[in-house]
């Protein structure tokens, strides 16, 4: 689906006038339309990568907050210029930080919050509130307001409208004006808070926005792994509905692995797993750990030890041992592997190998490979005598907005129970 721009050019208003203006908007200008009784979506739209690329002249504006191919291409090129490894993912916060050290003072229009991905607009958010922190940390707060009616596509759609509110400025100014936002969030409608940035930044803003039973959406691939996993565990423990886009991107891996064991004839092998190996891109281990934690939970394994493992010059891996329900040991290794063209987010899965060894019959070796990466390392050594089940895991290849739209369309008002149990195990797996 294509992106849609607000129909009206947003009106720049003094912050204090925003609530009054919105009231007038609904009573006067949108009087003939009924507001969508859907949800409020609050987005923290850092877009540091895009802002830095524009600033140093490696990307033309405007700044939209959308992660499209042009941004990704510019980011991959910039990684090389910055002397970062080839396998640095475009969304790795280190890259935005490194680009920040490059010279340049280019400017472009900042349209964050004014572009709405079609996949999201189809769900007709009643109010879209975007926090757009700027590179200039001292920039004062600017507030913009516009009415927004999703365009009906091919006969679909209706006359339900919403509005967009953009708060733009330095992080300090945004932090100081958080009180402005609270009255704009209707207590009668569900509220999603999408932290579309690193989990390392502005924790106090996240705490303020994601209060109560608001549905928090984060991306645990962005930020310090320990901080990301601890945040997931803390929010799950506190009973807050939390969704993790990094976890959602594991969907095709979970589905592919489950598919291997769908035929009843293979089910018993799951009771006899002796080894689990994962290969991940680069040095962010969170995604792999979440996958291993999910598997451990589903198969009732108990974590007994975890430790760092030296890689062959490609970084440090993670090793662990689990105890199966029958007391036998399962060895786990997760290793970082270098890749030529990294996927968008850090720590993407490259391959999985699961070896099941029962006393009867030949062992079963399951290998899942990423569509783009292959997994030669996992395919090597000692498998000639095993029954081999090999699958290629398709790339989801969906933008953040599409993932977010999937969440909105699901309408789930609680944490995915699989994530709720996997996150604490993943946190314990991290040495």
């Amino acid at each position, binding site marked *: 689906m294509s992106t849609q721009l607000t129909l009206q050019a947003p009106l720049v208003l003094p912050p204090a006038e925003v609530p009054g203006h919105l009231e007038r908007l609904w009573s006067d200008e949108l009087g003939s339309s009924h507001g969508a*009784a859907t949800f409020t979506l609050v987005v923290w739209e850092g877009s540091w990568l895009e802002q830095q690329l524009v600033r140093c002249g490696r990307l033309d504006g405007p700044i939209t907050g959308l992660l499209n191919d042009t941004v990704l291409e510019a980011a991959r090129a910039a990684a090389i210029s910055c002397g970062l490894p080839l396998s640095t993912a475009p969304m790795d916060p280190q890259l935005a930080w490194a680009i920040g050290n490059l010279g340049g003072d280019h400017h472009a229009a900042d349209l964050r919050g004014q572009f709405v991905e079609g996949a999201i607009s189809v769900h007709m958010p009643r109010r879209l509130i975007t926090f757009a922190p700027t590179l200039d940390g001292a920039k004062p707060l600017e507030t913009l307001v516009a009415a927004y009616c999703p365009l009906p596509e091919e*006969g*679909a759609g*209706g006359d*339900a409208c919403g509005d967009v509110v953009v708060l733009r400025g330095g992080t300090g100014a945004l932090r100081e004006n958080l009180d402005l936002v609270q009255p704009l969030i209707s207590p009668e409608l569900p509220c999603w808070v999408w932290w579309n940035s690193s989990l390392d930044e502005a924790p106090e803003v996240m705490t303020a926005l994601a209060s109560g039973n608001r549905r928090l959406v984060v991306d645990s691939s962005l930020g310090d792994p320990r901080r990301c996993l601890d945040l997931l565990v803390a929010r799950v423990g506190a009973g807050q509905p939390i969704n993790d886009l990094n976890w959602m991107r594991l969907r095709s891996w*979970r*589905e592919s*692995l*489950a598919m291997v*064991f*769908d*035929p*009843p*004839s293979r*089910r018993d092998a*799951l009771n006899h797993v002796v080894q689990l190996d994962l290969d991940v891109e680069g040095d962010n281990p969170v995604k792999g750990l979440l996958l291993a934690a999910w*598997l451990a939970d*589903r*198969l009732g394994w108990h974590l007994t030890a975890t430790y760092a493992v030296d890689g062959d010059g490609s970084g440090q891996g993670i090793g662990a041992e689990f105890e199966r329900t029958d007391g036998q040991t399962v060895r786990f290794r997760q290793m970082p592997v270098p890749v030529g063209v990294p996927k968008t987010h850090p720590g993407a899965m490259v391959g999985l190998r699961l070896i099941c060894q029962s006393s009867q019959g030949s062992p079963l070796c399951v290998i899942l490979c990423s569509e783009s990466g292959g997994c030669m390392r996992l395919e090597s050594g000692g498998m000639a005598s095993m029954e081999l089940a090999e699958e290629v895991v398709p790339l989801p290849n969906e933008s953040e907005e599409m993932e977010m739209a999937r969440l909105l*369309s*699901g*309408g*789930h*008002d*609680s944490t*995915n*129970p*699989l994530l709720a149990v996997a996150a604490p195990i993943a946190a314990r797996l991290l040495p």
Partner: protein
Amino acid sequence: MGAVLTNPLRVGLRQERVIPPQCLVIFGASGDLTHRKLIPALFELFRQRRLPSEFAVLGCARRPWSDEEFRSRMAEALANEVAEHPLAWEQFAAGLFYEPVDLQDPPSVVRLGERLAVIDRQRATRNNRTFYLSVSPTFYGSGCRSLAAAGLLSDPARSRVVIEKPFGRDYGSAQELNRVVQTSAQENQIFRIDHYLGKETVQNILVMRFANTIFEPIWNRNYISSVQITAAETVGVEERAGYYESSGALRDMVQNHLTQMLALTTMEAPGRFDPESMRNEKAKVLQAARLANEDEPWKCCVRGQYGPGGSSSKPITGYRQEPGVNPESTTETYVAMKLFINNWRWQGVPFYLRTGKRLPKRLSEVVLTFREAPVHLFDAAGGAPTPNQLILRIQPNEGAEFKFEVKAPGSGMRSRPVDMAFSYDDSFGEPSDEGYVRLLADAMLGDPTLYTRSDEVEAAWRLYTPLLELIEDAPAQLPVYPYEARTWGPGAADSLLADDGLIWRRP
């Protein structure tokens, strides 16, 4: 599908859409369908975490039950499930309510509106309602009118009506009923249910056809010589004699279930999988369908009625001896017919439909028979090579089967047919949801893709109008042939195909 050990990696993977806050109002809540299908389906949705906490079920019927009585009756009907999941039932049952309502009595419907407002406050269901008409078909029109008059259908975004089959008795009555319900609600609020469309394997017809590239190029008159669609039941009329006597197999099975299977098998690929695109294509193909001989419809249709059968130790009662059935009844319990579809894809390909009660096996299937190889190079075990067949098994043993010729082992070059089979059980090993689970969820989500639209229903009735008129006006021309219970129907049905040099598949 048989239940086997659950795949632990499969648990929780299906993240289906969650139904928005709402109250489901079931009219006819004291009837069979409510405790046999609807409440079990809702409880299943609850256990799958697909119902929000802001959800309620309001049972309505004329009996003066209380909320508590309704809950305990439902618990009794679902005794096994309740015993297995007592805590879940306790939570689910807290959202069950009951209101005595007579849809023909306006003050009663006004009271219903007041009760719904109270439930909205109690359960935060936000004025969002799905009304399920599980009542006698004679009340569909007046029921919709009463709901509309009480203002309960005025918000198209927050109110929907689900209407059970049969939707009309013939083309004229279906048109009239459509007119009445469409004056009470917008078409996008009306959900005409056909529970066959809720079956995983019926939906799989679409997936097989449109998610694979190998089938669609040969899915036409150039490669397919004939199609058979069968829905066979082993049971008799059971407790439905009253309804069945006035309906018969043609109205009870063919006009809806078999016609939907026909539509899914023959429709063009929709531009996208959304309600209107899907239903446009189904309506188009049904509008192109014709009885094989509309001028002399008795030549393309055979009716039958099961007589006594079975063994001396297990005798089976004939239809006319069933309780509640007229001993002189001419209601058909079996019907077979031949159709054509007059479009570019299907012109000249005969479609044979059959359904019946008290047949030897319970099964539903679609069988596509492909044209013979143009030249027979090899000796075939059966004299001539068996034409390729693709068999889509709807139930039981859900799956698909492809029959093709291979070289028989040995020094010669003789061919013989073999099967290549896919089975849901072997590949997935999980029981699939009951059709009502899927369909109820879709209605509450406001997704009508698997529901029939007014033009589809009318096209389906129009297709069989020559037969219905004949049964009404000159029944002798379309006699009801007796057949022994637990046989494959009257011999005349075999003649229908024999004239084309074909035989029914014996599954």
